[in-house]
């Protein structure tokens, strides 16, 4: 097995007396897609926020390729190759689809500080943005403002934004939330394509079991902020613990 690209060590965050994520230690590897499941309030999104930097851990650490990134700002983590998509659509609403993507391309290329070159004349940026628009089949709406897109296209743009960052680690938080059944496969195909690249690590929070079955190489289960189970999808899905958690009978510390 290759060395892990992302490791969380005893990762913990407390909000007052409430421990939202409790001593979660886990390693993720390139070429692997890990699905994180757990009931609402289990701490999945909080765990994501700790990894991508929206929250800073109370204790424990996050390592990316061995570098400690626990205290870094989200932008610094992005430069270390962490890419995060959000559960609620989180775009630049009054900018066009192309501008949205170009921002991500430009963040990656480090051109954000150029003040005199008209962005319209920087063909390389635009071409790269167009490439990701094509890959996500958004070329047709390139010049519409993001706020005017139908929900399904906004979700695709969310994924496109993440792809344009060209991260090593992709973090998806319920990418198909609120999408109609006929649109969800588009997004899932994109994730499957990313997964096919053996250098990329993918983390996915998902509720829909058919999605989990189709994509997961590995499943981890969070419950009350703790890591409850970790392993092969078939094994974890059939384990008693998981069924108990979803039926709501598990008690704290059941692991």
């Amino acid at each position, binding site marked *: 097995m290759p060395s892990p690209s992302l490791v969380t060590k005893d990762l913990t965050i407390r909000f007052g007396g409430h421990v939202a994520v409790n001593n979660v230690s886990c390693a993720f590897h390139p070429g692997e897609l890990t699905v994180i499941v757990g009931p609402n309030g289990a701490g999945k999104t909080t765990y994501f926020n700790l990894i*991508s*930097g*929206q929250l800073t851990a109370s204790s424990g650490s996050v390592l990316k390729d061995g570098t400690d990134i626990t205290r870094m*700002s*989200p*932008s*610094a983590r*992005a*430069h270390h190759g962490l890419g*995060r998509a*959000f559960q609620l659509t*989180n*775009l*630049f*609403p*009054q*900018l066009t689809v192309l*501008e949205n993507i*170009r*921002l*991500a391309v*430009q*963040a*990656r290329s480090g*051109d*954000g*500080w*150029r*003040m*005199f*070159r*008209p*962005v*319209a004349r*920087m063909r390389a*940026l635009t071409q790269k943005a167009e490439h990701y628009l094509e890959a996500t089949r958004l070329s047709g709406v390139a*010049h519409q403002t993001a706020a005017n897109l139908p929900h399904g296209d906004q979700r695709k743009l969310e994924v496109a*934004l993440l792809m344009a*960052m060209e991260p090593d680690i992709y973090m998806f938080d319920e990418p198909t939330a609120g999408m109609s059944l006929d649109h969800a496969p588009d997004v899932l195909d994109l994730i499957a394509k990313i997964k096919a690249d053996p250098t990329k690590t993918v983390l996915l929070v998902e509720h829909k079991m058919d999605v989990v079955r189709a994509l997961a190489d590995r499943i981890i289960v969070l419950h009350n902020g703790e890591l409850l189970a970790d392993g092969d999808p078939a094994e974890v899905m059939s384990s008693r613990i998981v069924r108990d958690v979803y039926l709501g009978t598990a008690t704290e510390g059941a692991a």
Partner: protein
Amino acid sequence: MQNTGTLIVKTSVILIFALLLFAPFLFQDVRSLEVAARICIFIVLVASFDLLIGYTGIVSFAHTMFFGFGAYGAAILLKTMGPGWTPVILGALAGVGVSLVFAIAIGLLSLRVKAIFFAMITLAAASVVLVLASQLSQITGGEDGIIYKAPDLFKPATKLLTDADGKVVRLWGVRLNGKLAAYYFVFFCALALFLVMLRFVGSPFGTVLKAIRENEARAEAIGYRVVAYRTAVFCLSATIASLAGTVYAVWLKYTGPDTALSFAIMIDILLMVVIGGMGTMWGAVIGAVLMILAQYYLRDLMGAASEAMTGIPLLPELLAPDRWLFWLGIIFILLVYFFPKGIAGTAMAWGEKA
């Protein structure tokens, strides 16, 4: 992608540019030239403020403070060193230097916090500087301000071109004297600063500013250090405001709290940005022109209207020139009501929907 609205806005701006370029020849009286120069300065001032409020979503009340630093820098040095270019250049540099120190300090201390807190800090800093300017009267002239001479080139007696008899040459009835040179100094400085800002907003840097305005958290998440970008644009905007202050000080040959530091100017800038439209450089041009024209000519217009209405009951009273502020207020309310995104912003949105 151009639409009719954008086309109208851009045409108006080009027309305004042409009028300002030929202003000394088109409007041959002292007051008009005064108005034209003020418009040039305020276009720059409002546009640089728009970099903050319209492009990045930063609310600052310290913009006149930076304008004042530039103006006082030149004024104090012109007073102590006498007329010449050295005090102007040193004054500009000093103004920019002080502005940058303040901008960096305020930026790093408070750009991380909530917008409302940042606005309060800028308000506090601006108030302190205003009080200092009126208290340190040995340096700043206090409430009376400073009167000084501009560089020799700009003296009304300076002859730019002379004919065989040694008299100043007239072009289309306009004397080619120092006053004309001073106006074009103002015009071309303002034009240069405006063009620089146009480059900023069209560059990758400008797109990051818009991203921060639209969604700060996501901008950070895709890899932009939001605090650094905010501080940078705050410094840029302060620098440009300060330079505009220096140019205005050279033009007016007088600098005091009322011309360079007062909160009345800050409110004017805010109104101009709102009337013109936030988040577009064209809006700054249109807002500044309309507001200044109203401030200078609404009274005259109302006086004329009032006289024309004599004999009709009530109307002459309503239109009495003394009530100009009342009418300006009504016009402002109507503008905000019918042009919620400002004149340029709303006009540019027309074509998109159609």
